[in-house]
Structures are given as structure tokens and as C-alpha cells.
């Protein structure tokens, strides 16, 4: 069950430790594509865990587009750690669609696009990769323009037919809401120092990067590593936090303002 997989007992007891171990092994082996994918999965466990239960409810009730993006990312993470995820249920009848071999697209372009323009085709499921030729790319471009669910089908498969507006995972969440200034500030997110960003690891260039991570619908934010030391010591007071991060008083105030703006700090 997807929701249980990201529930706290399994999330903290199995999933994140497993991903962390895979990440360490991949870095030790200089397997940078694997390291980048694993780090991205580890980071994404925060927003997925904070939204997956609601997403499941909204998908099964109304085929919500945002929910499809979240559940699909959840399934990707499960697959990455070797768990076969359950198929998503289809909560409504599928609109008209077709299957097509990728290398047949150019020849079928006019017919498929004509059906789509008539409203008789929502999307095409490709049974094999579309060739990377100019003719195929132009054909796919027209199909995506005419068939309302084509992009969603390419991203998410059959369920995409029910949610043409499902965004790419990278566009699913915006920034966390800013915190409210106040005399006593509380930390409103998790934070961790990880061995870089996924892009850095893909380039084989690991170096410590801080991450602000919300268990909810907010995009994780990379920050300078000293910011994590600052947050780690903040419960001992601002002076201790500044000292831990090597900041003077003025710079420490600037960091606090920025963390409030990012939604990592807010009035307790």
C-alpha cells in the first residue's frame, strides 16, 4: 500500500535508512547517476510523506491532477528501493485513447492528430520509444498540441488520461509559506546536511549542502551548510547558533530574516 510505505514507522525505520545506505554505496563506488537518483528520492521522501495520504484520497475520489503527480513520484521511489508498487486505481472511465509503437508515429501522425483535433482521442500510449528523429519529434509535438492528455500520458501512463493537467513532479509544489516574525521563533521544517544536490552528484561533484525539508506540500530548498549548523544550535539561543555557524551578530540576523522568508522559521 503506497500510503503505508510513507507512513512514519516505515519511513523512518526502513525507507530513509535504505536510501541513505544506497546513497553511501553509490558515492563510494562513484556511481554518480545512481547517487543522484537516490539523493533526489531521499529528498523527495519529505514532500511525498507529507502529502501522500491526501493525494490517495483525492486521486481515488476525483482523479485530482496534483495527486497523480505525487502518487507517481511515490511509486518511483518504491521502485527505486526494489518494491513493486501497486497500480493506481482508475477512478473514472478512460477517455478515448490508442496504443501505438513509437516507430509508427510518423506514419500515423496525420490520422492520430486528426482524431485528437476532433475530440475523439485524448492521448496515445506508446508501446516502444519514439525515435529521436526530426520527423518523429515534429509528429510528437503536433500530437501533444492536439491531444489534451498526451503529455500526462507520457509522464504517468494510463492514469494520465484521467488527469491531463497533472504537472511534472518538479512543478508540483511551490515554496513553503513564509514564517511570521515574532519574539520567539520556532523551526518549521526538518533540516539535514547531504552530500550535494542531485545535479552536483550527477556531475560527480559531491560536497556538503544543507537542505530545508518540509513534511508537506513545499519544495525542498538547498542552503549553505553553515545554515544547518545554525539551525541545529538555535534551541540554545541566537548567540549559540551564530557561534555554531561562524556568523557575527549582524549576519546572524540576516540569516534569521532569510529563514523566516523561506518558511523555515516562524513565530512559535
Amino acid at each position, binding site marked *: 500500500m503506497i500510503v503505508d510505505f510513507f507512513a512514519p514507522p516505515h519511513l523512518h525505520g526502513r525507507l530513509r535508512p535504505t536510501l541513505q545506505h544506497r546513497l553511501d554505496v553509490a558515492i563510494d563506488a562513484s556511481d554518480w547517476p545512481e547517487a543522484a537518483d537516490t539523493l533526489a528520492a531521499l529528498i523527495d521522501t519529505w514532500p511525498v510523506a507529507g502529502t501522500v495520504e491526501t493525494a490517495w484520497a483525492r486521486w481515488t475520489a476525483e482523479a485530482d491532477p496534483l495527486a497523480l503527480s505525487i502518487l507517481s513520484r511515490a511509486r518511483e521511489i518504491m521502485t527505486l528501493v526494489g518494491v513493486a508498487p501497486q497500480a493506481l486505481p482508475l477512478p473514472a472511465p478512460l477517455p478515448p485513447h490508442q496504443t501505438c509503437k513509437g516507430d509508427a508515429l510518423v506514419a500515423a501522425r*496525420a490520422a492520430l492528430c486528426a482524431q485528437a483535433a476532433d475530440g475523439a482521442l485524448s492521448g496515445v500510449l506508446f508501446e516502444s520509444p519514439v525515435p529521436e528523429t526530426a520527423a518523429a519529434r515534429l509528429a510528437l509535438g503536433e500530437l501533444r498540441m492536439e491531444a489534451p492528455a498526451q503529455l500526462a500520458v507520457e509522464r504517468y501512463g494510463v492514469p494520465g488520461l484521467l488527469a491531463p493537467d497533472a504537472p511534472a513532479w518538479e512543478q508540483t509544489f511551490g515554496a513553503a509559506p513564509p514564517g511570521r516574525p515574532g519574539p520567539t521563533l520556532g523551526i518549521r521544517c526538518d533540516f539535514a546536511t547531504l552530500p550535494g544536490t542531485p545535479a552536483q552528484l550527477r556531475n560527480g561533484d559531491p560536497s556538503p549542502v544543507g537542505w530545508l525539508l518540509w513534511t508537506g506540500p513545499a519544495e525542498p530548498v538547498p542552503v549553505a551548510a553553515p545554515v544547518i549548523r545554525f539551525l541545529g544550535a538555535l534551541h540554545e539561543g541566537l548567540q549559540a547558533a551564530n557561534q555554531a555557524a561562524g556568523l557575527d551578530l549582524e549576519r546572524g540576523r540576516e540569516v534569521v530574516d532569510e529563514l523566516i522568508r523561506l518558511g523555515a522559521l516562524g513565530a512559535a
Partner: protein
Amino acid sequence: MPGTLCILGLGPARPEHMTVEARDVLRQAEAESWHVYGLAHARGMARRVCPELAVKSLDYLYTLQGVDRPAAYADLAKMMWRKAYEEDRKVLYLVAGSPLFYNDAVLFIRRLSAQSGQSIRLVHGMSFVDLVLDRVHWTGHDGLQLYSAWNVAFDGVRLNAQAPTLLCQLGEFTAGGDALDPDGSRKMLAPLRDALATHFPPEHPVTIVYSSGAPDYDSLSTRIPLSTLAERTVPVYSNLFVPGLVSPNEGEEAP
């Protein structure tokens, strides 16, 4: 019902510059549920007149890896033609500015029309030339050469230095037609300056004509010596007016 293909020029940007015919066609397309296609700028202009008009996005043509612009424009033309005359749809292709200026897809369609004898409807739109001439005093007595700036900078086009010249698409910095990043414009301004310097002295005045952008789209200009042309970036879709040597005041900057 037989299909039709209408190419609609929307003018440079401001709704006030759109012709009455263009507005009528947009409303007719909305009322009769034509199949309407356009790039981002054209879609925005059409929405200001017909907010409910559904316009399908052709923007993908600019994002296809491995597909050069000429191939994309040819494919666009064939696609519009197919939808209209092989599938018998009412098709409206929206074009910013005038369809007759620097639009390879429109030219391709017009050639298909000439070859097949199948007529198309072309609704003219105000071109960028009107806005450029709004910023310079030009009588026409010495003529006017019209080129893409790219042609002069990189293609070895030789100008008649005696006559004024209007260079469009100033700042376009790749052969593929990329001009949407003003920071890239210097890549072509320096070669253009050097090419013009083979015709004109360094102090020869040239006028950069550009738009203030949304929402007013006012025509703006800056007159500078040719030698300083590459010292700044230029906004997207700028133009350059270069007076001829015979009558340097033919093309002076308008106040």
C-alpha cells in the same frame, strides 16, 4: 464542408494596431469554433480581443532538439495546409506583425497555394517597419535597404552605403533565430559593428529602435555612434536604422 486556411496578421503588439478585419476574423473564429493556432505572443494578443478564443500553442516548435528552424517552419506550413485542405477544417494561423515580413512558414504556405491553385485568405497586419519609421525622419528619397541584421553580421551581405538601411532582428544571436535572451545580443552586435565599419566611419550615427514592452509597447530609440554599437545589450526584437552616406539626415532620430 470544405476547409479554409486564414493567415491572420495581428500587428506588432498593441490591440489598437490590430485591423478591423483582424478583429472580425478573431470573433468569427470564436463564434464558429475554428481551429486556431499561434505562438505565445500571438496568443496573448488574440486573448486581449477575444478572451474566450481557444488557441492551440505552437511554442513546441521552438523547443524541439535536433530540428532546425527551416525544417520546423516547413513542417508548420504543411501541418496547417493538411488540417485545412486534407481534413477540411476551418484553420486560423495567428501571426504577430505582418504575415509578409520574415515569416518562412507563411511564405511556404503561399507557395503551396500557388502550386495547388487552392486559395488561402491572408489578413494583413501592421508591420514592425511602421514602428521603426515612427522613430526616425525618413522621406524615402534615397530609398531604403531592408535586411536581417544577421545577414550583414554573418552572411557577408554588402550594403549600398549611400542609401539608408533598416536592419531587423537586431540581437538575434544564433543561426537558428534565437533572440529571446537580451544578454546574448552582444554576440551579434560586435560582428555587426565590424561589418558596418567596412562601409561607414566610426562616428557614423545609427539608431537602435526598440519597444518599451508590455503593457504600452511604445516605440523607443537611442542614437549612438557606430563604434559604440556593441557596448550594450539590446532588447529582444530591436531594429537598427543606419542612415546612408549621401544624406546623413535622412533617418535622423525623431524627437
